[in-house]
């Protein structure tokens, strides 16, 4: 079905006057529950109306061009007019109106204009996704009734889901032989690759799901496509038989190299890679759907994008919806400033270094969405920085998200169904601050970034002063958290809330361990403790690190579970023997540990290493095994001999280096044993646990299995 829609331009052309945005209420679109969208020769919207249907819209939006001296480029403008229907118009940017041209052409023409004008031209709306732009202009959005609010956490759906778990390793196998397909019941598909794939395709065809959750989908799909092509089979993942292709790429993100595999994205159906999708891992299906609602992107894309790209897409959607054009390139540089000003402004968040030790009855004060709330409350936006009176773009678009996060954070405590949405919002809001200083952020500016951190430092200092004035002892602080000891925490939180205008919450620790740095000072980001509900909260130790082998993680988790039975620092002494036994058992059983439990998972940052190191050896081992690797990819390996840098990919490993893993065990044990041998001046100050442990150790050695210390 094809429909023509009136094209909504941000601004009317030809007479130079601004036109009001026409309020299109188009019956064909209103009330649809959009499942997927495709910007191909117009826009295809896949929507549920009983069954899933598709509607095509002719849609050819222009990009906008501004030239500082149009007369200097009159020949180019004439050519654009003849070939691409270029016409004069006025459009609205974040910093004001510009008179320029609308050009009905694609990115290649825009890049040619850039080349020809030697960077003088300013271009807008060149790289906004066509389907996203269409929906933003029509004020509709995916994954919800189009008449409703995007900012509601309640959006019931009856999507037909199927989960495909493939137990083969996509790196090693070209074809799958062991598959579980879970829908109303679980189908087990085992056998030769041909029969399994044929059965899988038939089942999918019969079930006709709306959402496919598939392990390693982005690695398996190209294999399926090759196999189907060679056997003349039709791949049933797409409802049209067509697939969009996302290229693989490696990129830097928050100081580390990441890798995204190429993906084949089906039409009319949501395919989520349950292993690779960060948003799915964090937010589940509801999180992905909410990301799609906010960003105006198909859930297929929302599940594959990072939180940073999602918040950026959300800002783009909002800009288009408000009739603001989106810059193609980020050309507005930081303002000229003096050295002294830079040194004053360019600082990060505030940190207070703790004194390492074990503390009892500690409260953690946590500011909810501190940076986004500062943006909203202080009206920090690139175009309105330093101005008063009007709300800036960034502040106004973040306000509903911040309010929604507060709502979901509250609701998730009573109803776990909101956890996924809350987690998604948390990540989006975490990254929205970083994006203000990110080089490719469409609506970012480094001065806004600096203003946010400046304000956060002020707030943390004010909070510390307030706490101390009320008799609290401030033990530690990291950017948006303070650890304090004293009485009257609820009153303190209420006062902080009133003073800063920010929402704060507190968590009570029965005891908490701040671990030491090598120089003896307290580590900023390595601690663990028992919360008042009996659970253990850990940060920065082996049990929490992504590269810790499972064997070591399990040992530390078992120790922490024992320690969780201690309700106060003084009670820790009662579990120390048990904890030490866990360590001894782990050391004793290490020679018999299953090899997969010793696999180390790392994200590689480069393909070649100048110096000899374990990571470089792992990259070589992968390459020798015939695996094509790219920076940012995750690899799993077992260290065979650390001294000579010999490692094996997880699936080929046959033995391991016991002394290397013993070293890792000892390191993890050291993080825990610190809680027992710490002899500061606190309630647990007189412990001499170390001596007890040493006596246990020597007794054990006589029995012949206790570990070396």
């Amino acid at each position, binding site marked *: 079905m094809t429909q023509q829609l009136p094209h909504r331009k941000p601004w009317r052309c030809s007479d130079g006057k601004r036109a009001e945005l026409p309020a299109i209420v188009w019956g064909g679109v209103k009330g649809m529950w959009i499942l997927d969208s495709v910007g191909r020769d117009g826009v295809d919207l896949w929507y549920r109306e009983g069954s899933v249907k598709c509607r095509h819209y002719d849609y050819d939006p222009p990009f906008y061009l501004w030239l500082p001296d149009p007369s200097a480029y009159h020949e180019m403008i004439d050519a654009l007019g003849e070939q691409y229907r270029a016409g004069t118009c006025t459009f609205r940017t974040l910093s004001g109106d510009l008179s320029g041209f609308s050009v009905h052409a694609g990115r290649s023409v825009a890049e040619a204009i850039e*080349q020809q004008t030697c960077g003088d031209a300013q271009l807008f709306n060149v790289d906004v996704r066509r389907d996203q732009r269409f929906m933003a202009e029509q004020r509709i959005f995916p994954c919800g009734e189009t008449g409703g609010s995007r900012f509601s956490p309640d959006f019931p759906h009856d999507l037909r889901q199927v989960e495909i778990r493939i137990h083969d390793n996509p790196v090693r196998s070209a074809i799958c032989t062991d598959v579980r397909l879970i829908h109303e019941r679980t189908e087990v598909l085992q056998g030769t690759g041909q029969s399994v794939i044929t059965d899988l395709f038939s089942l999918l065809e019969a079930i006709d799901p709306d959402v496919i959750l598939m392990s390693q989908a982005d690695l398996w799909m190209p294999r399926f496509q090759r196999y189907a092509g060679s056997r003349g089979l039709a791949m049933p993942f797409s409802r049209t038989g067509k697939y969009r292709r996302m290229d693989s790429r490696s990129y830097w993100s928050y100081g580390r190299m990441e890798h995204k595999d190429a993906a084949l994205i089906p039409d009319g159906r949501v395919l989520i890679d349950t292993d690779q999708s960060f948003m799915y891992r964090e937010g589940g299906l509801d999180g992905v759907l909410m990301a799609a609602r906010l960003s105006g992107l198909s859930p297929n894309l929302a599940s594959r994008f990072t939180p940073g790209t999602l918040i950026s897409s959300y800002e783009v959607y909002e800009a288009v919806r408000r009739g603001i054009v989106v810059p193609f390139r980020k050309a507005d540089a930081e303002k000229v400033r003096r050295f002294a000003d830079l040194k004053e402004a360019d600082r990060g968040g505030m940190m207070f270094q703790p004194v390492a030790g074990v503390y009892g009855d500690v409260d953690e004060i946590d500011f909810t969405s501190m940076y986004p709330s500062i943006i909203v409350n202080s009206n920090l936006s690139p175009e309105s920085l330093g101005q008063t009176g009007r709300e800036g773009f960034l502040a106004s678009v973040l306000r509903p998200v911040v309010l929604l996060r507060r709502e979901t954070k509250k609701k998730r405590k009573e109803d776990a169904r909101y956890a996924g949405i809350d987690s998604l919002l948390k990540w989006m809001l975490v990254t929205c601050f970083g994006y203000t200083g990110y080089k490719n952020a469409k609506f970012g500016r480094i001065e806004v970034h600096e203003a946010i951190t400046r304000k956060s430092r002020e707030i943390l200092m004010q909070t510390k002063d307030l706490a101390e004035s009320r008799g609290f002892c401030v033990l530690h602080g990291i950017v948006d958290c303070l650890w304090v000891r004293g009485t009257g925490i609820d009153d303190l939180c209420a006062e902080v809330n009133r003073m800063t205008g920010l929402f704060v919450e507190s968590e009570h620790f029965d005891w908490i361990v701040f671990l030491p740095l090598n120089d003896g000072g307290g580590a900023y980001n390595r601690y663990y403790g028992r919360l008042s509900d009996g659970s253990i909260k850990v940060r920065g130790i082996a049990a929490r690190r992504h590269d810790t082998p499972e064997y070591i993680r399990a040992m530390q988790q078992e120790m922490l579970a024992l320690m969780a039975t201690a309700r106060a620092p003084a009670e820790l002494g009662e579990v120390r023997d048990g904890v030490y036994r866990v360590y001894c058992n782990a050391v004793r059983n290490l020679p018999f540990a299953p090899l997969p439990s010793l696999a180390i998972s790392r994200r590689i940052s480069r393909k070649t290493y100048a110096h000899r190191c374990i990571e470089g050896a792992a990259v070589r081992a992968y390459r020798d095994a015939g695996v094509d690797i790219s920076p940012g990819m995750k690899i799993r390996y077992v260290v065979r001999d650390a001294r000579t840098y010999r490692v094996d990919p997880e699936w080929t490993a046959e033995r391991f280096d016991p002394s290397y893993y013993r070293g890792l065990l000892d390191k993890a044990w050291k993080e825990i044993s610190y809680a027992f041998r710490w002899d500061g001046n606190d309630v647990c100050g007189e412990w001499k646990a170390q001596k007890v442990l040493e006596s246990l150790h020597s007794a054990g050695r006589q029995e012949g299995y206790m570990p070396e210390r």
Partner: protein
Amino acid sequence: MRIMLRKGITLHQGTFTAVIAPEQVILSALNDNPDIGRFLTLFVCGNYSRLLTRFRQASPNIELRRPFTADQLLTAIKEAGHTVIIIEHDPTLFDGAERLLAPIAAALREAGREALVILYAPAMDRPFGTLARQADRLIEIMPSDEPGYRQPYQGTRPYRHDAAAPAQKTLEVF
């Protein structure tokens, strides 16, 4: 206005010079030159400058601008009206933005008609080579202790154990 880079190597106003040298050489040339503070000077660097925190001139005449994209670098050069323009080359700006190498080289040459423009890098790389082709002079200074040795470009992080403490007084957010 002139800057003596080393004995016998002097840079003059009205020229665009590309310089490859050890950081210490360029730093001593800038820090020990009192003229730098007397003239309006613009220092342009990227997000991970190796020189910024060790640049000791405190004159109010010295200004700073940090472009984080090649487009922003082009804007910074075009808008600069300073007597001295020092650009610390950041090759990462040109990742995926090679299209701007020619306009930026042309803008540097244009700025060098009136100002003293220095494009500095510790080692040669492909974008630097393209930009330097438009320079009036290319000066390469080898480390004095190892003649013939080219300093490899190792990463972009500024931190060095032997360097003065970085300007940032608090830790980064994580």
